[in-house]
């Protein structure tokens, strides 16, 4: 057992128009895209959505291979989806290979489902590629703010998320260090049956928890010493600003979604 990848998060910093958009605009835009992809039904609709996503990728000035790399974990499920729809849909036969029959309907359906999956992942990954987790958290906090009245703890959620995000790299580094230290003492994290392997992780978990609690205690004292007392009246160093490009972007996205979703 080892870490799948030690770098966590996909965010790539930049200074393009897309990077500079308010996170709220991008969250709303992504939601619209998901709605759109499930409401269009036909190749013109998917084609237009693909063009729109391509335009966003181009405007973000990110290398295309980053977006394509995000699709890699999807490969197996994509091949499965396309080929199953290709062979299992009944209809007018086009091609016969041994016992498998490709039908016209199957071909269209397979391509459409594949396109939807690819566009869905490419589109949503644009959000996490161009927006830092902290910005996203900030965006979620302000979007949830109206729900405070019905008891949604918007500020507290965002604060806890920010703390977790701040400490994930530290915790990862620490996990690696503890693993190596325990392996040097003869711990084995790779072999044994399931129960054995879970038990072998205890010498990793205990120091990890103890250190985390110690850190949490220090941080809580530091926060209170600086006068932290919840979200009410709290000011921010970096305020989210909903500017003119955001207004323009959101107008374009809504208009596009309505037109494409309605007509195609």
């Amino acid at each position, binding site marked *: *057992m080892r*870490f*799948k990848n030690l770098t*966590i*998060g*996909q965010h790539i910093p930049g200074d393009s128009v897309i990077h500079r958009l308010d996170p709220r605009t991008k969250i709303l835009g992504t939601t619209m895209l998901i709605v759109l992809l499930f409401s269009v039904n036909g190749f013109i609709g998917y084609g237009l959505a693909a063009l729109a996503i391509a335009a966003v990728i181009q405007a973000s000035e990110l290398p295309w291979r980053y977006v394509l790399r*995000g699709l890699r974990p999807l490969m197996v499920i994509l091949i*499965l*989806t396309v080929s*199953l*729809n290709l062979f*299992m849909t009944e209809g007018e036969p086009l091609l016969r290979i041994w016992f498998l029959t490709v039908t016209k309907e199957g071909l269209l359906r397979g391509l459409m*489902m594949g396109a*939807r*999956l690819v566009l*869905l*992942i490419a589109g*949503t*990954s644009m959000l*996490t590629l161009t927006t830092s*987790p902290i910005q*996203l*958290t900030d965006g979620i906090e302000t979007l949830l703010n109206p729900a405070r009245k019905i008891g949604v*703890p918007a500020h*507290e*959620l965002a*604060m*806890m*998320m920010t*703390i*977790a*995000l701040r*400490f*994930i790299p530290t*915790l*990862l580094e620490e996990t690696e260090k503890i693993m190596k230290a325990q392996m040097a003492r003869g711990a084995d994290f790779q072999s044994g049956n*399931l*129960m054995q392997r*879970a*038990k072998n*992780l*205890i010498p990793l*978990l*205990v120091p*990890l*928890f*103890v250190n*985390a*609690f*110690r*850190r*949490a*205690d220090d*941080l*809580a004292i530091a*926060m*209170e010493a600086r006068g*932290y*007392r*919840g979200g009410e009246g709290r000011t921010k160093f970096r305020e989210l600003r909903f500017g003119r490009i955001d207004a323009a972007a959101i107008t374009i996205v809504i208009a596009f979604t309505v037109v494409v979703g309605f007509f195609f």
Partner: protein
Amino acid sequence: MIRNPSQSKGAMFATSSMVKIGMLAGIGMVLMLLDFPLPLFPSFLQIDLSDVPAVIGAFSMGPAAGVMIELLKNLLKIIVGSNTGGVGELANFLVGAGYVLPLALVYQRWPNRQGVLWGSITATVGAAVFAGVLNYFIFIPAYAVVLGFPVEVFVDTAALVNSAVVDLRTMVIFAIVPFNLIKGVIIAVASLTVHRVLRPLWDKF
């Protein structure tokens, strides 16, 4: 003394609890990266120990804190980049909460060894049944709709490694429920061992 609103809003949102919950969610996220596949089960069922921090948090700060840690862990996963479009995270949250909640509620009522034992049993069985019901009625049909192919495909992939699986119902009974039972036992054993070692430290922090 200045009144501190973050202290009076109920225990979970006191500064010290918020920091601990955030930290535990962070550990959960790290443990998610350390998963191991299970033999005899389809590959989309994987075991990881990311529920252990939620259980530890629930023991020390109550059931609501445990559920909150599960929620944050999955929100974080979505924010740093999910590859199931949020469906996997929703499933993980519901089943995780279905595990932590009964365990913490039983422990809250009987905070002793018996409470821990019966809590773990309730939680393991409860979460496994809950996961079976959720998968049967919601998640597998939802995946089938999104991917555009019939439910039988999931059944066929599961049947390749497990011959008892013949339809969706047998798949839930012979793959999803046992998987969650095994997972529940592993989480319980790991959490309880960690909890026993950490308990003397609770009062210090």
